[in-house]
């Protein structure tokens, strides 16, 4: 049976919530059958996105059957501990990423938009889902969103197929022309979250110093506006918006300096040598950011498209990209599966941590939804069909877990973005090329 959105049984799934939750369960228990039930479920409080490059080995990824999530496939096996809060979605697609490339896979993943084919600064994409969400749920926090990655060195020289490297480097765009650079250095992330200084007074003094530098910078930028012509004034206005944004962050941090205790983590100094150690540290920083409520929106590029990282630690000494052009060679497919599983295991460790961290009445995981996946399906032929997609967490927000939802081939990934945006309280009719919402992911309780 193919579940289409019209044929959905309006049923409530309670499985999976009993273990960790008490109160939020009440929201979830409101029968959806009472159509238009007006008692609201909690909106999704935090949203995260993890990107993996170069698709997956579908054979070892896709669960058998549909509906209830049965035995986990080899790649997904590490997620056993959070299975009750996990939904696997099959057959989603990125239409706008064609003609198929690595650049458009990354660019389209959160934007579902068409990447303008250019190598210059006239690149144009679309505002990404995380940034639309951040405008709603990021307003109150010190950082509206946090952009993380793992690759310390950006690609140099000519990128790919005449696409500017931003498409490959940046997952998150705050407007169609504003890609947000991501950070891979744990110490710098830590300093963005917690600033300098090791005491409340020290942190406050450091923040005030930053604020006064920024004041002065802002005046000088404003003066610049008089020097430039009409066409360039728009750019100066963008700069001023940026400055106001940074100002706001500093104010928030100052307000929070007294209430957010320093985390129980040594200030990281370097970048761990092993990939897993580095990734785990980056995930830990996300836990800390949520715990201290410094941000509620995170994007994390776990590896970059086209990268040639080798994984000797899991028995894959071959570089990822050429291996992903497997041409159905069983040996190469097995290696891709190993890489897929390795990445999933890092994500699983993170979800376990979220689950183990108290947040209000439940756990951080209950109040957080993460989307994990790739913008390529079969990387061997650069297609954007049947993307590997997981949605995890969110039990307190009405998210049903323990499911495998199989759509008709070609269902837009944007439908999922639209659904998540709806759940964080952003009311839009359409996102990218969406043509509906992802049914059966959340309890059908109107917000």
């Amino acid at each position, binding site marked *: 049976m193919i579940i289409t959105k019209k044929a959905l049984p309006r049923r409530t799934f309670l499985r999976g919530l009993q273990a960790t939750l008490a109160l939020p369960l009440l929201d979830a228990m409101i029968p959806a059958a009472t159509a238009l039930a007006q008692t609201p479920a909690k909106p999704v409080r935090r949203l995260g996105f993890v990107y993996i490059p170069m698709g997956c080995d579908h054979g070892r990824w896709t669960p058998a059957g549909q509906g209830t999530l049965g035995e986990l496939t080899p790649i997904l096996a590490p997620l056993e501990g959070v299975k009750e809060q996990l939904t696997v979605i099959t057959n989603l697609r990125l239409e706008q990423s064609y003609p*198929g490339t690595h650049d458009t896979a990354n660019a389209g993943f959160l934007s579902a938009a068409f990447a303008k084919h250019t190598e*210059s600064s006239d690149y144009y994409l679309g505002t990404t889902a995380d940034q639309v969400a951040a405008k709603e749920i990021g307003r109150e926090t010190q950082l509206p969103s946090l952009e993380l990655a793992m690759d310390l060195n950006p690609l*140099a020289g000519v990128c790919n*197929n005449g696409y500017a490297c931003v498409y490959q480097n940046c997952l998150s765009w705050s407007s169609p022309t504003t*890609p947000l*650079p991501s950070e891979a250095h744990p110490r710098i992330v830590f300093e963005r979250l917690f600033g300098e200084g090791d005491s409340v007074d020290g942190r406050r003094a450091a923040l005030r110093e930053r604020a*006064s530098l920024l004041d002065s910078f802002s*005046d000088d930028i404003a003066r610049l506006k008089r020097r430039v012509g009409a066409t360039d004034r728009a750019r100066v206005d963008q*700069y001023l918006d940026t400055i106001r944004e940074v100002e706001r962050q500093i104010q928030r941090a100052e307000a929070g300096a007294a209430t957010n205790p320093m985390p129980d983590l040594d200030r990281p100094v370097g970048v761990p040598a092993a990939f897993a150690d580095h990734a785990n540290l980056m995930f830990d920083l996300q836990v800390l950011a949520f715990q201290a409520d410094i941000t509620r929106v995170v994007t994390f590029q776990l590896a970059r498209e086209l990268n*040639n990282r080798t994984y000797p630690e899991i028995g894959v000494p071959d570089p990822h990209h050429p291996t992903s052009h497997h041409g159905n060679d069983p040996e190469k497919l097995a290696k891709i599966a190993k890489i897929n599983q390795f990445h999933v295991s890092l994500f699983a460790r993170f979800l376990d941590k979220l689950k183990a961290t108290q947040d209000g009445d439940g756990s951080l995981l209950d109040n957080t939804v993460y989307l994990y996946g790739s913008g390529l399906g079969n990387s061997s032929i650069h297609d954007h069909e049947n993307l590997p997609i997981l949605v995890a967490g969110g039990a307190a927000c009405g998210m049903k877990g323990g499911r495998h939802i199989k759509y008709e081939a070609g269902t837009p990934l944007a439908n999922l973005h639209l659904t998540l945006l709806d759940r964080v309280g952003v009311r839009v009719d359409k996102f990218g090329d969406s043509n509906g919402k992802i049914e059966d992911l959340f309890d059908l309780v109107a917000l």
Partner: protein
Amino acid sequence: MRNGSPGALPHVRAVTIGLAGLALAVTLGVRAGAFAEAPAAEARIAQTSPAVGAVPTASSHRRTLDRYCVTCHNQKLKTAGVLLDTVDVADPAAGAEVWERVVRKLRTSTMPPSNMPQPSDEERGQLLSWLEGALDRAAAARPDPGRTETLRRLNRTEYQNAIRDLLLVEIDAASLLPPDESGHGFDNVIVGDLPPALVDRYISAAQRISRLATGRTQGTLQSDIIRVAPDLTQEQHADGLPIGTRGGVSIKYTFAQDGEYDIQFYLARSYSGDIEGLKGSEQHEIRVLLDRRPIGTMTVQRPPDGDDSLLDRNLKIRVPVTAGPHDVGVTFVRNSSSLLETARQPLLAHFNERRHPRITPAIQQVSITGPYAAKGGGDTPSRRRIFVCRPAEAGQDDACARQILSTLMRRAFRRPIVDADLERPLAFYREGRSSGGFDAGIERAVGAVLFNPEFLLRVEADPSGAKAGVPYRISDLELASRLSFFLWSSIPDDALLDAAIRGDLRRPEVLEQQARRMLADPRSFNLTSNFAGQWLQLRNLDAVSPNVRLYPDFDDNLRQAFRQESELFVDSVLREDRSMLDLLKADYTFLNERLAKHYGIAGVYGSRFRRVTLAPESRRGGLLRHGSVLSVTSFATRTSPVVRGVWVLSNVFGAPPPPPLPNVPALDGNVPANLPIRERLAAHRKDPVCASCHRTIDPVGFALENFDAVGRWRDHDGDNGAIDAEGGLPGAGTLKGVAGLEEALLRRPELFAATVTEKLLTFALGRGVEYYDAPAIRRIVREARPDNYRFSSLVLGIVKSVPFQMRRAS
């Protein structure tokens, strides 16, 4: 803060620079006359190569077009969006954009396609000289210099260099600022954005640098970890460390204050977690060096119970260090007994536990933390640079602060400073002084100068009264910045700034003299490291990691040697002001023992790089034979004739192939993977859609097939039999091997010169080169020809060109 990877060998570079500076000085002033020529003189020399026989007319050009081009490029088929049936060939200037595309295709013989009827050389030449002549005349009459973006921020390299030249502090900008995006092949093109995270980082960077430069740590510790590349073999002597040592690292590090610092290090461990290279009861002596003097010694050996988990937890010494830049070294004393014994095939690489393990222990990372018991800022180059005065008595503080700041701000803002400019930094100074004294005040003010739009942004604004769309000459100050950011990727020095402020710089002889002076300065190494590093994609070497089974002898030592060879080679052409054509064919290169062994060249010993004159049978010499270029254009498991072909066509020949068409099937999805690469590509070319580009691309790459994926010469490719290096180049027919390819490229040197010029111009302007730049490029190449395309003739050609000196008003 630290600078440089452990593999960098700056002092080798310094030697080369010193010698080469003399060579360049000799040639100074020879070409001053040509410099005086104003752009308007273009018309006089525009018409080139008059046709033989009948005088060609517009109608004969139309016939040539109709016969060879319009078959595809017509209104019905619209091939590549180029419609040549309707444009007016009698007036090329009216359709300059499309005609420049035609010129490029005709020049490089990439059109008509090789499987279509070809015009005779005479027809081709006549049409070309007609088009180029008309386009150049029109450009001379109405120059279009294009428009660089008004607001451009310093990129990471420029920021690092500017800090070095402003404060005499070496920083590692990569640890302070987010990476830049690349456009048109260079990272100084897309620099108009200013996202919040970057502003945030600019503030932190300004604060950290101002503390480091003024020697104030504000009570916090400086702490940095220097990681050694995990695939660095450490069995041999490493350049930069004393003789008698093996392995280890040498780190350039700037200490903020006089005081005591912890230097701690860890040993390399295998996947299983054991320290590598500890065997039996053999002892290994580790030396810690400061400026090459031993300051500490430790000995390690395998613990009796074999449990080494705590063995390197406390390899740490605390030593007094004076503030300022120092070399920190951590290395091993070479054991006379440690013969390189291995159970497997002897390889040079030793870092992989399972295949070619380390024989002796290695350093994995070094951390430096301090100061403890700090004793103040001390006497450092940066403090001498900043504190140009000291308040002699109370009450003179402000006057001295003004002097310090105006000196600094003139350099930082690249313009004269007036009193009003000083107000804000002085406010920061006063705030700091009231809480922490004079030095604290200066530290705060320096931070405010560094976090200032006038330092961080390069602004090129239209002068008041500029008419929309009309070109104007940029100001002397703007010209000074264009020149220094082109040649040095940094701020102007005092001499250049003085000339601009005097209003002298626009005088052609002053401009040439400044440009030549700057080329002779060591800072122009930037053209090698930064420009050529991106043009030739040497920067991507860090991402090169060949398959360890197929290429077990590849390690970081080889990777760094590849980079060194190419950098020293390009720099020699620059320093000795040689012809750019030497880049493609030379009888010398730079080698150390590691690289010489890789290339199979005998008689080169030791880790130090030196210039080596090559015998013809060495098969080395030009860039196309460099391991760097050959490996960045290969995949991890095999060569890629396609990537190599695209590299040569784009970066040397000047005919970049178009990107793949939508929905072209990938090679690997359709063709059996076990065929030799030549056969796989032949299968790919069976599809006419693929063939349209690959018929041009693949033969160029095939010519380089004698070099494997790590740049070694080979006559056979494993089970696939003898290498067939028959290749081709558009307009040159078939050719044989790398020598044939070089010969074909050098037969049309103007194409290579034009390609280098185009790349240099992109880098110089920080924007993509457009059709309206083509006349300027042709002129530069034409004028450099009598000089045999000497490096300086191309650089100076750019400096005096219309796009470099002018800008179109918005």
